[in-house]
């Protein structure tokens, strides 16, 4: 069942941060993405929801060029993937679901490294790295290798790495997972500020309350297809919260099968 909010016609391509048409990704015979269509307006805070295995991470990995799609068209910030992939990569900041930090570097070294990979001068990269360590309250760990960071610290550091080059688009996969409330509040404030200055945030999350509070628009994906899309206000109603809609659309209402031995 598909639920589409009554919205104005799709924004023009140039005003879209992400445009995806008919995106398909097969693993053998299994379709992880099955004709996904998506339009994310620039300057929006966009939530991408779905149950486990729905295709959220696969979508993000396709947008960042890690996974080549089986078919479909993908444009990020008006640039086609894979033809203009390098240019796309210069304009995006990524926080992946799993920690992919280089654990033998210190936090500041990692940030400096990332800054220089995005063409920042060394002095600028180092200065921003130090400032970001302070902003994310990681400066007390400045002499510790990343291997010694907790999960929440790694997430904060990963977001700092995504910010250092001031990208126009943030692709965040479960950015608040494992982060304590204080850290999560800080991350939300920073991301909101980025959207206020014109950047776009595209994030996946299982924490629907956070999505409801932060996001302007939301899409729900299931089995590799969008099953609902629109603004949070349009998708919600007086009777149903976002969680109710989510559970109803992705088929979570069937009775839990009781196991005799359980």
């Amino acid at each position, binding site marked *: 069942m598909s639920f589409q909010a009554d919205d104005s016609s799709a924004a023009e391509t140039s005003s879209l941060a992400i445009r995806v048409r008919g995106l398909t990704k097969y693993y053998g015979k299994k379709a992880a993405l099955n004709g996904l269509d998506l339009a994310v307006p620039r300057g929006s805070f966009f939530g991408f929801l779905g149950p486990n295995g729905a295709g959220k991470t696969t979508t993000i990995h396709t947008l960042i060029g890690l996974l080549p799609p089986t078919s479909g068209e993908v444009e990020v910030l008006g640039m086609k993937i894979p033809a203009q992939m390098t240019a796309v*990569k210069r304009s995006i900041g990524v926080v992946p679901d*799993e920690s992919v930090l280089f654990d*033998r570097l210190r936090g500041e070294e990692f940030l400096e490294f990332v800054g*220089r990979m*995005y063409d920042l001068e060394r002095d600028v990269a180092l200065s921003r790295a130090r400032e970001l360590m302070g902003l994310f309250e990681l400066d007390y760990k400045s002499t*510790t290798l990343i*291997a010694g960071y907790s999960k929440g610290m790694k997430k904060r550091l990963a977001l700092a790495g995504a910010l250092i080059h001031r990208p126009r688009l943030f692709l965040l996969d479960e950015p608040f997972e494992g982060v304590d409330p204080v850290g999560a509040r800080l991350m939300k404030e920073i991301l909101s500020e980025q959207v206020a200055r014109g950047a776009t945030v595209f994030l996946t999350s299982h924490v629907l309350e956070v999505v409801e509070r932060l996001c302007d628009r939301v899409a729900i994906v299931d089995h590799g297809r969008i099953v609902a899309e629109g603004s949070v206000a349009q998708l919600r109603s007086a009777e149903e919260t976002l969680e109710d809609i989510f559970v109803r659309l992705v088929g979570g209402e069937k009775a839990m099968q009781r196991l005799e031995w359980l």
Partner: protein
Amino acid sequence: MRPLQQIFALVRVQARSLLNTMRYQPGGGGLKVSVTVAALWYGIWVFAAVGCAALPRMVGAEDIEGVLSGVLLFIMAYWQLAPLLTLSLGVSLDARKLTIYPVSVPTLFVVECLLRLGTGSEMLLLLAGFLGGLAAAGSPHVRELTVGFTLFVAFNVFLSAGVRNFIERVFHQRRLREVFLLVLACATLLPQLLLWSDKVRGTARTLWTAFRGFPTWALPSDIAAQISTGEGRLEHLAAMAGMVAAAGVFGYVQFSQGYRVTSMPAISLPAYPWKNGRPQAGERAARLPSRVLRDPIGALVEKELKYLWRSPRFRLPFFMGFTFGVIAWIPIMQQWKALGAWMEQSAVSLISLYSFLLLGPVMFLNRFGFDRGATRFYFWLPLTLRQLLLAKNLATLLFAMLEVALIAVVCWLVGVDIGWEQITEAVAVSLIALLYLLSVGNYMSVRFPVASNPDRISRAGPGHGVRAAVQFLLFPLALLPLVLAFVARYQLNNLFLFGACVGVAAVLGLGLYLFTLQWVSRLGEAGREQFVDHLSQGEGPIASE
């Protein structure tokens, strides 16, 4: 769950993990390639075992039984020492994965012993060959041989379990690790002390005399030989059983202590300390290349230098290259001086090539191993795989040249005749060798990547056999142009031909390197999904990271 069930479950799940991992190598054809290479490697040992089986018929069972103590001594030395000298301690239990399950430590020790049995499989083949050959040659001691060999194998299994876990435990604790490396460093002074100090020479003579007087009947290999040839009495059997029990206790104690230590996650790993808020000399040195090289190459090289240096698994073979390499070479050189001056004249070059062999798994053959899952990070940065491989190769080159320099210094310190000619030759030979080794290494790194824990010194995982076989088979092939150059120099006594061969080797090597760099980059980009996936995976409950 009964212990036997748990043991079978562990072994079964590990076999399953290995099979799945070998099957899904990036680039496809994984299982076929892995099986082929494993067949080649073990084929050599099967051939050796067949030779051992044929020997008793050829020379007589009695003659073989007469030298059995020497044979068993060799097997024991190889079983215990080869893993240490090549830093290949084999698969191990991954304590952190198993600690949550209700499996007792004795049960896990049984699995550990099975693993040690597996890693000694080459020696088991030789023993099986001897046993079969002696039986076929009509030896009257088949039953005794079976008993003797069984006790001997048990002793070696327990001893290697103890030694392996002791070393892993030492390397898990940073201070002990550094002490161990310091002891190794002190050992490099021994040749020089023997040369210059009468006292040390006198002590060494006394120790040597004592060793020569050591009752060989007390060696496990000798006792096992006595039992196996029917000459053993009850006291020999009791002594052997006692040794097996002692090795078992040693192995179990080391295993249980090591398991407790390695099951704990690293809580906080301090980086090398800064003093007065400023980076230390090592960190400043790591920054030097990026003053010359533009980003992103400069930033990548700097990252690689720091990363490798902070990994004990890199530091140990790096250290061993200019210590063990020299210690091993000098006596050989002294003893075989009659063969020619080439051993001393090209000592630095030859020791450097040996050090590259040691460093192969961490510096050439599995370049993304330490990055593990973080490899995917590279793919959303605005850089190409070609740039990434080039940067990693440059970092390798810098460490390799440092290794050569240290080897030259240590050789000079212990009295080897070192001049500019030797240094120039060593640099040239090393650079050319690196062209070939990096070509092979880039391909292996992308085609057969394996996640590698930088804290563990053992090399394990399903790709280990493939990489070990590549090292064994392809390293000599890769270095063939240089071997031919040395033949021209020393056998044909023709310096001009030597120079010409070196020149041709350099040109061919450069061509090969540039070609493989481009080709492997395309391979890696096309198969990046599997490549990254493979590096993100763990290896099951038994093979360590």
